[in-house]
Protein backbone atom coordinates (compact mmCIF):
# COMPACT_ATOMS: atom_id res chain seq x y z
CA UNK A 1 0.00 0.00 0.00
CA UNK A 2 1.20 3.49 -0.81
CA UNK A 3 1.23 5.96 2.09
CA UNK A 4 0.31 9.59 1.51
CA UNK A 5 2.28 12.48 3.04
CA UNK A 6 -0.30 12.85 5.81
CA UNK A 7 0.07 9.21 6.79
CA UNK A 8 -3.18 7.99 5.18
CA UNK A 9 -3.32 5.27 2.56
CA UNK A 10 -3.63 6.46 -1.02
CA UNK A 11 -7.09 5.83 -2.37
CA UNK A 12 -8.61 5.39 1.09
CA UNK A 13 -11.10 7.86 2.54
CA UNK A 14 -9.18 10.21 4.85
CA UNK A 15 -10.04 9.37 8.43
CA UNK A 16 -11.18 12.92 9.33
CA UNK A 17 -13.57 12.99 6.39
CA UNK A 18 -14.85 9.58 7.35
CA UNK A 19 -15.46 10.59 10.98
CA UNK A 20 -17.16 13.82 9.94
CA UNK A 21 -19.39 11.90 7.52
CA UNK A 22 -20.20 9.36 10.23
CA UNK A 23 -21.12 12.05 12.76
CA UNK A 24 -23.29 13.83 10.15
CA UNK A 25 -25.01 10.58 9.24
CA UNK A 26 -25.72 9.74 12.89
CA UNK A 27 -27.00 13.28 13.50
CA UNK A 28 -29.28 13.00 10.43
CA UNK A 29 -30.71 9.70 11.66
CA UNK A 30 -31.31 11.12 15.15
CA UNK A 31 -32.91 14.26 13.69
CA UNK A 32 -35.16 12.13 11.49
CA UNK A 33 -36.54 10.47 14.57
CA UNK A 34 -36.75 13.60 16.68
CA UNK A 35 -38.51 15.90 14.20
CA UNK A 36 -42.23 15.76 13.52
CA UNK A 37 -43.03 14.14 10.19
CA UNK A 38 -45.90 15.19 7.98
CA UNK A 39 -46.95 12.70 5.30
CA UNK A 40 -47.55 14.70 2.18
CA UNK A 41 -50.94 14.41 0.60
CA UNK A 42 -50.56 13.96 -3.15
CA UNK A 43 -50.73 15.68 -5.50
CA UNK A 44 -48.14 18.10 -4.26
CA UNK A 45 -48.71 21.70 -5.19
CA UNK A 46 -46.63 23.24 -7.95
CA UNK A 47 -43.70 25.45 -7.13
CA UNK A 48 -41.73 27.37 -9.67
CA UNK A 49 -38.08 27.30 -8.75
CA UNK A 50 -36.84 30.67 -7.71
CA UNK A 51 -33.20 29.85 -8.27
CA UNK A 52 -33.48 28.57 -11.79
CA UNK A 53 -30.44 29.25 -13.92
CA UNK A 54 -30.28 29.95 -16.71
CA UNK A 55 -33.60 31.84 -16.52
CA UNK A 56 -36.63 30.14 -18.03
CA UNK A 57 -37.25 31.15 -21.60
CA UNK A 58 -40.34 30.20 -23.55
CA UNK A 59 -40.16 27.02 -25.62
CA UNK A 60 -39.64 27.86 -29.28
CA UNK A 61 -40.20 25.69 -32.29
CA UNK A 62 -36.43 25.16 -32.55
CA UNK A 63 -36.35 23.63 -29.09
CA UNK A 64 -38.84 21.07 -30.30
CA UNK A 65 -36.12 19.37 -32.27
CA UNK A 66 -33.39 19.32 -29.66
CA UNK A 67 -34.34 16.01 -28.10
CA UNK A 68 -33.98 13.87 -31.20
CA UNK A 69 -31.06 11.88 -29.81
CA UNK A 70 -32.63 11.11 -26.43
CA UNK A 71 -33.76 7.58 -25.65
CA UNK A 72 -37.47 6.96 -25.18
Amino acid at each position, binding site marked *: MKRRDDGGVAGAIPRRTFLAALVTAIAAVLAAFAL*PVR*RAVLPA*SPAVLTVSKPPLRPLTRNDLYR*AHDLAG
Partner: protein
Amino acid sequence: MERREIAPVLVECTLCPKQCRIPEGRSGDCRVRINIDGRLRASTYGTVVAAHVDPIEKKPFFHFHPGATALSIAAAGCNLHCDGCQNWEISQANPEEAEAHPLPPEELARMAAREGAPLVAFTYTDPIVYYEYACDSAVACAARGIGSVLVTAGYANDAPIRALFRLVKAATIDVKAFDDAFYRSHCGGGLKPVLNTLVAAREEGIWLEVSNLVVPGMTDDPVKIGELCRWVRQNLGEDVPLHFLRFAPHYRQENLPATPVATMDRAWQIARDAGMRYVYVGNVPGHASESTKCASCGALLIERAGYRLLSIRLKDGRCPSCGGVIPGVFGGQG
Protein backbone atom coordinates in the same frame (compact mmCIF):
# COMPACT_ATOMS: atom_id res chain seq x y z
CA MET B 1 -52.25 33.21 11.21
CA GLU B 2 -51.21 31.12 14.13
CA ARG B 3 -48.45 28.69 13.40
CA ARG B 4 -48.46 25.75 15.71
CA GLU B 5 -45.24 24.01 14.83
CA ILE B 6 -42.27 25.21 16.72
CA ALA B 7 -39.88 22.58 15.41
CA PRO B 8 -39.20 22.31 11.69
CA VAL B 9 -41.28 19.64 10.00
CA LEU B 10 -39.96 16.80 7.89
CA VAL B 11 -42.27 16.17 4.98
CA GLU B 12 -42.55 12.58 3.86
CA CYS B 13 -43.12 12.22 0.13
CA THR B 14 -45.31 9.19 -0.52
CA LEU B 15 -44.95 9.12 -4.30
CA CYS B 16 -42.29 6.45 -4.62
CA PRO B 17 -40.98 3.69 -2.38
CA LYS B 18 -38.08 5.85 -1.23
CA GLN B 19 -40.59 7.80 0.89
CA CYS B 20 -38.03 10.55 1.46
CA ARG B 21 -38.38 12.53 4.65
CA ILE B 22 -37.42 15.96 3.45
CA PRO B 23 -36.19 18.78 5.71
CA GLU B 24 -37.27 22.36 5.14
CA GLY B 25 -35.73 23.87 2.01
CA ARG B 26 -34.33 20.56 0.81
CA SER B 27 -35.34 18.12 -1.90
CA GLY B 28 -35.89 14.38 -1.93
CA ASP B 29 -33.59 11.87 -3.58
CA CYS B 30 -34.99 12.77 -7.01
CA ARG B 31 -33.94 16.43 -6.44
CA VAL B 32 -37.34 17.44 -7.73
CA ARG B 33 -39.76 17.35 -4.85
CA ILE B 34 -39.01 19.92 -2.21
CA ASN B 35 -40.17 20.96 1.23
CA ILE B 36 -41.18 24.61 1.29
CA ASP B 37 -42.72 25.85 4.54
CA GLY B 38 -43.51 22.31 5.63
CA ARG B 39 -45.38 21.48 2.43
CA LEU B 40 -44.31 19.17 -0.38
CA ARG B 41 -43.91 21.02 -3.66
CA ALA B 42 -43.32 19.78 -7.18
CA SER B 43 -40.45 21.99 -8.29
CA THR B 44 -40.47 21.14 -12.00
CA TYR B 45 -44.20 21.55 -12.49
CA GLY B 46 -45.02 23.01 -15.89
CA THR B 47 -41.43 23.17 -17.15
CA VAL B 48 -39.75 20.94 -19.71
CA VAL B 49 -36.09 20.16 -20.38
CA ALA B 50 -36.86 18.27 -23.58
CA ALA B 51 -39.65 18.39 -26.13
CA HIS B 52 -39.68 16.58 -29.42
CA VAL B 53 -42.20 15.17 -31.88
CA ASP B 54 -41.22 11.50 -32.14
CA PRO B 55 -42.73 8.49 -33.84
CA ILE B 56 -44.55 6.43 -31.17
CA GLU B 57 -42.29 3.51 -32.14
CA LYS B 58 -39.35 5.29 -30.51
CA LYS B 59 -40.84 5.15 -26.98
CA PRO B 60 -41.05 2.13 -27.76
CA PHE B 61 -44.69 1.29 -28.55
CA PHE B 62 -45.09 -1.24 -31.38
CA HIS B 63 -48.71 -2.29 -30.88
CA PHE B 64 -50.23 1.08 -30.07
CA HIS B 65 -51.29 3.33 -32.95
CA PRO B 66 -48.36 2.34 -35.22
CA GLY B 67 -46.98 5.27 -37.17
CA ALA B 68 -48.59 7.93 -34.96
CA THR B 69 -46.51 10.81 -33.68
CA ALA B 70 -46.25 11.79 -30.05
CA LEU B 71 -45.21 15.17 -28.71
CA SER B 72 -42.69 13.81 -26.23
CA ILE B 73 -41.65 15.83 -23.22
CA ALA B 74 -39.70 15.55 -19.99
CA ALA B 75 -39.08 17.57 -16.88
CA ALA B 76 -35.72 17.29 -15.10
CA GLY B 77 -34.84 14.64 -12.53
CA CYS B 78 -35.46 10.98 -11.76
CA ASN B 79 -36.01 8.83 -8.70
CA LEU B 80 -33.61 6.19 -10.02
CA HIS B 81 -29.93 6.73 -10.72
CA CYS B 82 -28.97 4.03 -13.17
CA ASP B 83 -25.27 3.77 -13.94
CA GLY B 84 -25.97 3.34 -17.62
CA CYS B 85 -28.73 5.95 -17.98
CA GLN B 86 -29.07 6.85 -21.66
CA ASN B 87 -30.54 10.28 -20.84
CA TRP B 88 -28.46 11.16 -17.79
CA GLU B 89 -27.89 14.79 -18.81
CA ILE B 90 -31.49 15.55 -17.98
CA SER B 91 -32.49 12.69 -15.67
CA GLN B 92 -29.65 13.26 -13.23
CA ALA B 93 -29.72 17.04 -13.54
CA ASN B 94 -30.46 19.41 -10.73
CA PRO B 95 -33.71 21.15 -11.66
CA GLU B 96 -32.16 24.47 -10.62
CA GLU B 97 -29.38 24.03 -13.13
CA ALA B 98 -31.12 22.37 -16.05
CA GLU B 99 -32.16 24.62 -18.92
CA ALA B 100 -35.92 24.39 -18.69
CA HIS B 101 -38.75 26.03 -20.58
CA PRO B 102 -42.18 26.87 -19.20
CA LEU B 103 -44.91 24.76 -20.78
CA PRO B 104 -48.03 24.65 -18.60
CA PRO B 105 -50.42 21.71 -19.22
CA GLU B 106 -52.88 23.74 -21.29
CA GLU B 107 -50.03 25.11 -23.42
CA LEU B 108 -48.65 21.59 -23.92
CA ALA B 109 -52.02 20.36 -25.16
CA ARG B 110 -52.23 23.31 -27.56
CA MET B 111 -48.71 22.61 -28.83
CA ALA B 112 -49.55 18.94 -29.52
CA ALA B 113 -52.61 20.02 -31.49
CA ARG B 114 -50.56 22.60 -33.39
CA GLU B 115 -47.91 19.98 -34.26
CA GLY B 116 -50.59 17.57 -35.44
CA ALA B 117 -49.61 14.98 -32.82
CA PRO B 118 -52.53 12.81 -31.71
CA LEU B 119 -50.55 11.72 -28.64
CA VAL B 120 -48.43 13.24 -25.90
CA ALA B 121 -45.72 11.08 -24.33
CA PHE B 122 -44.30 11.65 -20.85
CA THR B 123 -40.88 10.17 -21.33
CA TYR B 124 -37.07 10.72 -21.48
CA THR B 125 -36.64 11.13 -17.68
CA ASP B 126 -39.40 9.57 -15.56
CA PRO B 127 -42.93 10.97 -15.35
CA ILE B 128 -43.16 9.67 -11.79
CA VAL B 129 -41.10 12.58 -10.52
CA TYR B 130 -43.09 15.08 -12.56
CA TYR B 131 -46.25 13.35 -11.47
CA GLU B 132 -48.49 16.37 -10.89
CA TYR B 133 -47.49 17.93 -14.19
CA ALA B 134 -48.11 14.65 -16.04
CA CYS B 135 -51.52 14.20 -14.39
CA ASP B 136 -52.69 17.73 -15.17
CA SER B 137 -51.29 17.56 -18.70
CA ALA B 138 -53.07 14.27 -19.41
CA VAL B 139 -56.34 15.90 -18.36
CA ALA B 140 -55.69 19.02 -20.47
CA CYS B 141 -54.78 16.85 -23.48
CA ALA B 142 -57.84 14.62 -23.08
CA ALA B 143 -60.02 17.73 -23.25
CA ARG B 144 -58.64 18.30 -26.77
CA GLY B 145 -58.96 14.67 -27.81
CA ILE B 146 -55.24 14.04 -27.45
CA GLY B 147 -54.23 10.80 -25.74
CA SER B 148 -51.35 10.51 -23.27
CA VAL B 149 -48.83 7.73 -22.83
CA LEU B 150 -46.16 7.04 -20.23
CA VAL B 151 -42.63 5.75 -20.55
CA THR B 152 -41.47 4.93 -17.06
CA ALA B 153 -39.28 2.71 -14.94
CA GLY B 154 -42.31 2.09 -12.76
CA TYR B 155 -40.59 2.73 -9.44
CA ALA B 156 -43.63 4.19 -7.72
CA ASN B 157 -46.07 3.56 -4.91
CA ASP B 158 -49.28 1.80 -5.81
CA ALA B 159 -51.94 4.45 -5.17
CA PRO B 160 -50.34 7.36 -7.06
CA ILE B 161 -49.28 5.28 -10.07
CA ARG B 162 -52.76 3.82 -10.39
CA ALA B 163 -54.22 7.34 -10.32
CA LEU B 164 -51.87 8.30 -13.16
CA PHE B 165 -52.67 5.14 -15.15
CA ARG B 166 -56.34 6.09 -15.04
CA LEU B 167 -55.50 9.29 -16.94
CA VAL B 168 -53.42 7.77 -19.75
CA LYS B 169 -54.00 5.33 -22.58
CA ALA B 170 -50.81 3.29 -22.52
CA ALA B 171 -47.48 2.73 -20.79
CA THR B 172 -44.13 1.27 -21.67
CA ILE B 173 -42.51 0.14 -18.46
CA ASP B 174 -38.79 -0.44 -18.40
CA VAL B 175 -37.56 -3.27 -16.21
CA LYS B 176 -33.87 -2.68 -15.58
CA ALA B 177 -33.15 -6.32 -14.68
CA PHE B 178 -34.97 -9.17 -13.05
CA ASP B 179 -32.63 -8.81 -10.12
CA ASP B 180 -33.23 -6.86 -6.93
CA ALA B 181 -29.51 -6.72 -6.11
CA PHE B 182 -28.87 -5.06 -9.49
CA TYR B 183 -31.52 -2.42 -8.78
CA ARG B 184 -29.95 -1.71 -5.41
CA SER B 185 -26.34 -1.47 -6.55
CA HIS B 186 -26.73 0.10 -10.01
CA CYS B 187 -30.02 2.02 -9.99
CA GLY B 188 -30.74 3.08 -6.41
CA GLY B 189 -34.09 1.32 -6.41
CA GLY B 190 -35.62 -2.13 -6.05
CA LEU B 191 -37.37 -4.69 -8.23
CA LYS B 192 -40.53 -5.45 -6.25
CA PRO B 193 -42.25 -2.05 -6.67
CA VAL B 194 -41.59 -2.21 -10.43
CA LEU B 195 -43.29 -5.60 -10.67
CA ASN B 196 -46.22 -4.19 -8.67
CA THR B 197 -46.47 -1.30 -11.13
CA LEU B 198 -46.56 -3.73 -14.08
CA VAL B 199 -49.42 -5.65 -12.50
CA ALA B 200 -51.20 -2.39 -11.65
CA ALA B 201 -50.97 -1.25 -15.29
CA ARG B 202 -52.49 -4.51 -16.40
CA GLU B 203 -55.26 -4.27 -13.78
CA GLU B 204 -56.07 -0.68 -14.71
CA GLY B 205 -56.65 -1.85 -18.28
CA ILE B 206 -54.28 0.45 -20.15
CA TRP B 207 -52.22 -0.81 -23.10
CA LEU B 208 -48.88 -2.10 -21.80
CA GLU B 209 -45.50 -2.85 -23.36
CA VAL B 210 -42.35 -3.87 -21.49
CA SER B 211 -38.75 -2.94 -22.25
CA ASN B 212 -35.41 -4.08 -20.90
CA LEU B 213 -32.00 -2.54 -21.59
CA VAL B 214 -29.45 -5.29 -22.16
CA VAL B 215 -26.12 -4.08 -20.79
CA PRO B 216 -23.13 -6.34 -21.50
CA GLY B 217 -21.77 -7.96 -18.35
CA MET B 218 -24.54 -6.33 -16.28
CA THR B 219 -27.99 -7.34 -17.43
CA ASP B 220 -27.23 -9.88 -20.13
CA ASP B 221 -27.33 -12.98 -17.91
CA PRO B 222 -29.48 -15.50 -19.83
CA VAL B 223 -30.81 -16.96 -16.57
CA LYS B 224 -32.13 -13.58 -15.39
CA ILE B 225 -33.52 -12.74 -18.82
CA GLY B 226 -35.32 -16.08 -18.76
CA GLU B 227 -36.75 -15.34 -15.32
CA LEU B 228 -37.99 -11.95 -16.52
CA CYS B 229 -39.68 -13.48 -19.56
CA ARG B 230 -41.40 -16.20 -17.52
CA TRP B 231 -42.57 -13.66 -14.93
CA VAL B 232 -43.98 -11.41 -17.67
CA ARG B 233 -45.72 -14.34 -19.31
CA GLN B 234 -47.25 -15.58 -16.06
CA ASN B 235 -48.31 -12.22 -14.69
CA LEU B 236 -49.00 -10.07 -17.75
CA GLY B 237 -49.59 -12.61 -20.48
CA GLU B 238 -47.79 -13.92 -23.54
CA ASP B 239 -49.17 -11.15 -25.77
CA VAL B 240 -47.41 -8.24 -24.04
CA PRO B 241 -44.87 -6.82 -26.51
CA LEU B 242 -41.40 -7.23 -25.01
CA HIS B 243 -38.58 -4.99 -26.22
CA PHE B 244 -34.91 -5.75 -25.60
CA LEU B 245 -32.99 -2.53 -26.08
CA ARG B 246 -29.36 -2.48 -27.04
CA PHE B 247 -27.12 -0.51 -24.68
CA ALA B 248 -24.75 2.20 -25.91
CA PRO B 249 -22.02 3.44 -23.53
CA HIS B 250 -23.30 6.32 -21.38
CA TYR B 251 -22.88 8.07 -18.04
CA ARG B 252 -21.10 5.88 -15.46
CA GLN B 253 -20.87 2.98 -17.89
CA GLU B 254 -18.92 4.79 -20.60
CA ASN B 255 -16.27 2.11 -20.11
CA LEU B 256 -18.56 -0.68 -21.29
CA PRO B 257 -18.90 -1.65 -24.94
CA ALA B 258 -22.17 -1.49 -26.84
CA THR B 259 -24.11 -4.74 -26.50
CA PRO B 260 -23.05 -7.29 -29.13
CA VAL B 261 -25.86 -8.02 -31.56
CA ALA B 262 -25.41 -11.74 -30.82
CA THR B 263 -26.34 -11.01 -27.18
CA MET B 264 -29.49 -9.24 -28.36
CA ASP B 265 -30.36 -12.19 -30.58
CA ARG B 266 -29.89 -14.53 -27.61
CA ALA B 267 -32.27 -12.43 -25.45
CA TRP B 268 -34.82 -12.49 -28.27
CA GLN B 269 -34.56 -16.29 -28.51
CA ILE B 270 -34.87 -16.76 -24.73
CA ALA B 271 -38.10 -14.75 -24.74
CA ARG B 272 -39.52 -16.69 -27.67
CA ASP B 273 -38.58 -19.97 -25.99
CA ALA B 274 -40.34 -18.75 -22.84
CA GLY B 275 -43.53 -18.39 -24.88
CA MET B 276 -43.58 -14.62 -25.43
CA ARG B 277 -45.25 -14.00 -28.77
CA TYR B 278 -44.20 -10.47 -29.70
CA VAL B 279 -40.53 -9.87 -28.98
CA TYR B 280 -38.47 -7.04 -30.46
CA VAL B 281 -34.85 -5.96 -30.48
CA GLY B 282 -34.39 -2.19 -30.36
CA ASN B 283 -31.46 0.09 -31.23
CA VAL B 284 -30.20 -2.36 -33.87
CA PRO B 285 -31.31 -0.80 -37.17
CA GLY B 286 -32.29 -3.39 -39.71
CA HIS B 287 -32.75 -6.17 -37.14
CA ALA B 288 -35.05 -8.94 -38.35
CA SER B 289 -37.33 -8.50 -35.32
CA GLU B 290 -38.17 -4.84 -35.91
CA SER B 291 -41.25 -5.72 -37.95
CA THR B 292 -44.32 -7.38 -36.43
CA LYS B 293 -45.14 -10.86 -37.67
CA CYS B 294 -48.25 -12.79 -36.79
CA ALA B 295 -47.39 -15.05 -33.84
CA SER B 296 -49.75 -17.71 -35.18
CA CYS B 297 -48.88 -17.95 -38.89
CA GLY B 298 -45.80 -15.76 -39.31
CA ALA B 299 -47.35 -13.37 -41.84
CA LEU B 300 -45.72 -9.94 -42.02
CA LEU B 301 -48.20 -7.49 -40.45
CA ILE B 302 -46.45 -4.26 -39.53
CA GLU B 303 -43.32 -3.47 -41.48
CA ARG B 304 -40.81 -1.07 -39.93
CA ALA B 305 -37.40 0.31 -40.74
CA GLY B 306 -35.98 1.50 -37.44
CA TYR B 307 -38.73 3.66 -35.96
CA ARG B 308 -40.29 4.28 -39.36
CA LEU B 309 -43.55 2.57 -40.25
CA LEU B 310 -43.40 1.26 -43.82
CA SER B 311 -46.66 -0.63 -44.11
CA ILE B 312 -49.43 -2.09 -42.02
CA ARG B 313 -51.56 -5.06 -43.04
CA LEU B 314 -54.21 -5.66 -40.43
CA LYS B 315 -57.90 -6.25 -40.95
CA ASP B 316 -60.06 -5.14 -38.02
CA GLY B 317 -57.13 -5.86 -35.71
CA ARG B 318 -56.70 -9.35 -37.18
CA CYS B 319 -54.09 -11.08 -39.28
CA PRO B 320 -55.36 -11.06 -42.90
CA SER B 321 -53.76 -14.48 -43.50
CA CYS B 322 -54.99 -16.60 -40.58
CA GLY B 323 -57.57 -14.31 -39.00
CA GLY B 324 -55.84 -14.40 -35.61
CA VAL B 325 -56.43 -11.41 -33.31
CA ILE B 326 -53.33 -9.23 -32.99
CA PRO B 327 -53.02 -7.74 -29.51
CA GLY B 328 -52.83 -3.97 -29.49
CA VAL B 329 -54.64 -0.70 -30.02
CA PHE B 330 -54.73 0.02 -33.73
CA GLY B 331 -57.46 2.66 -33.89
CA GLY B 332 -58.74 3.03 -37.42
CA GLN B 333 -55.53 1.63 -38.90
CA GLY B 334 -56.63 -1.90 -39.34
